[in-house]
């Protein structure tokens, strides 16, 4: 496993200290780390464990329980395909399959160039515009399979 840089260790400790006096600090700490680094690998969890006294096993449990957290770096663009009930009956499975097919990865994985990650999401509360896809916060309504190619191209052009 890659050794963390001193600067990273310092920053992770700072994030821990920010929340250490909260009633339940772990979620806030992990959330900040996820936002800052894009993922929470096990060597980062070890540092959090040492600073907070919470066991690595428990931290790992939280990280793997919530889909918001990730153990591996995520891509620049995170394609969140909603697979909630409404989206699913409107054909969301075919949409996510198309994204996977074009990018050559499975849900939860990241393309080799680090551009895209595909996430299968539970209901994101946008049932009125099902099937919905959210990319870095931008929501695409009523996505059809034949639109997928152009959506990907849009981001490829932005680089």
């Amino acid at each position, binding site marked *: *496993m890659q050794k963390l840089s001193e600067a990273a260790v310092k920053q992770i400790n700072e994030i821990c200290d920010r929340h250490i006096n909260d009633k339940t600090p772990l979620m806030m700490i992990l959330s900040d780390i996820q936002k800052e680094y894009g993922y929470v690998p*096990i*060597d980062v*969890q*070890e540092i959090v*464990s040492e600073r907070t*006294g*919470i*066991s*690595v*096993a*428990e*931290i*790992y*449990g939280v990280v*793997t*329980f919530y889909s918001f957290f990730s*153990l591996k770096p995520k891509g620049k663009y995170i394609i969140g395909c909603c697979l909630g009930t409404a989206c699913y009956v409107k054909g969301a499975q075919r949409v996510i399959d198309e994204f996977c097919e074009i990018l050559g990865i499975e849900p939860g994985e990241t393309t080799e160039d680090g551009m895209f990650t595909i996430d299968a999401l539970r209901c994101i509360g946008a049932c009125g515009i099902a099937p919905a896809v959210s990319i870095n916060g931008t929501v695409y309504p009523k996505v059809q399979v034949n639109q997928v190619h152009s959506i990907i191209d849009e981001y490829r052009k932005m680089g």
Partner: protein
Amino acid sequence: MSLVNIKIEGVPYQVEAGLTILEAARECGYNIPSLCTFNHGQCSLGSCRVCLVEATGARGLVASCVYPVAEGMEIRISSPKAVKARRTSVELLLSNHNRDCQQCSKNGNCELLNVAQITGAREGAFKGKKTSTTYDEFSPSIVRDTSKCILCGRCVVRCQEAHGNGILGFENRGFETIVAPAGNHSFANSPCLLCGQCVSVCPTGALMEKSEIWKVDKAMAEGKHVVVQTAPAVRASLGEEFGMKIGTPVTGKMVAALKRLGFDKVYDTNFGADLTIMEEAHELIARIKNGGTLPMITSCSPGWVNYAEYYYGDCTDHLSSCKSPHEMQGAIIKSYYAEKNGIDPKDIFVVSIMPCTAKKYEKERPQLAVNGIPDVDAVLTTRELGTLIKRSGINFTKLPDEEFDQDIMGIYSGAGVIFGVTGGVMEAALRTAYRTLMGEEYGPINFTEVRGFDGIKEATLNLAGNEIKIAVAHGMKNAKPIMDDIRAGKSPYTFIEIMCCPGGCINGGGQSYIRPSLLINEDADIIDTYKQKRADALYSEDERQTYRQSHNNPQIQQLYAEYLGEPNSHKAHELLHTTYVKDRVRFE
């Protein structure tokens, strides 16, 4: 204490308010089928739904392990609805369980199988997908098989309660949930102490010791000279394997059984314990006199040594350099004993019967070998010895009491016996240190200040003008504050005993299982008293010994006179001392 009136099956009772239905029912003489009979339901998350009962005032059936009694509550355990619901709960658990019960070594102690029989669960009642399996057998000590895990969480709680920062936790979610070290690492590649406390509470075969019976079989088949030694704590628990009352000392029967199992020599690790005391007490005195690293900490417990290396690598100079007793004895068997008997050490196979799973790992440490020959070749737990005896058709309870082989290392002192309980190593060391420093025996013999099960015990002694402050800790949760003080350079102690398992070796991860639901002839409070009962078995054997101090063991004296010279001599260092790793990687 306020009381509430309840009815169970229509019969009125008064019970303490605040009890769960399960606890209250137990006091009234009912054992509601459940899986959280361990330690007052300490592990209970109410998740298995095995202990469902009907209770007035509740919607539907309630899990009796978490639902508190209330005034006027009427409880039905035997109603058709409750009986059927409990059966369904168990059948659902079984549907995601690897049911190779016949070859599972927890069979006989499996609480799931027990509760399945009691509730009448039907084979294959539900068929469906199974959670993908992790089978981890990389560590020399513990096997983890998630196909048998019912996610009760006992191991998670026990690990945390004993050691503070537990190694085990729940990972992933929903149907993919498993119990594992972070990242589903093997126990071998994670900072697990390998103490086996998780094994001792696991109700099924999900956590097991890694059996080495085959190694003993192989050595015997190859015609090796097989020498067996037994740790002090084993005699306080082995009888339980044969239905004897907890705390029955079975030293003589154990020896008789071992002699019938074909071992060439049967020795007591207490001799090794006496040797450890000679080396350790003199090491301590030398450190005090020469300004060596203090406080000095005992190093007999391999779980504790693992903890020190993983979490306090910078403090390992504080550990005594002494090998643990069975390793010392193994080294002497393969040198002094081999020479005396004209046997090539390569042809000797040393088997240690230990209350411990970490000892299985310990024997494989490269630091615990002399000229590439390991001091010890196989470690069996108390439970594995039970299996060996049963397999050979020996009726253990009917065996006569016999004596250990008496040649070379057959005599042991009472100080060696008490090694098996928290405070025992300290007491044994003090008996010898007192004699060495004061020139006379300690009058009362016993140092009772260090006995008992308090997490941290302290005492101050005055030895020849040296004020010596000592501490005894068991369970790594209790070791941590002591180690933090040492790291910060403010430890007030001179000498510290640390054992990994709560209570010491008598409660080691290799001892007989304590399953209140299966121990119908024991008292209801056995979960609170078994440690004391096992400890009493050792303290009473100490009282019965001719020699009470290690330095008075005539064979120890002879070993030094003939072979080692004096404690901490060059020869002794070669054979009896070891080194530690300062930068052990936690997750590989």
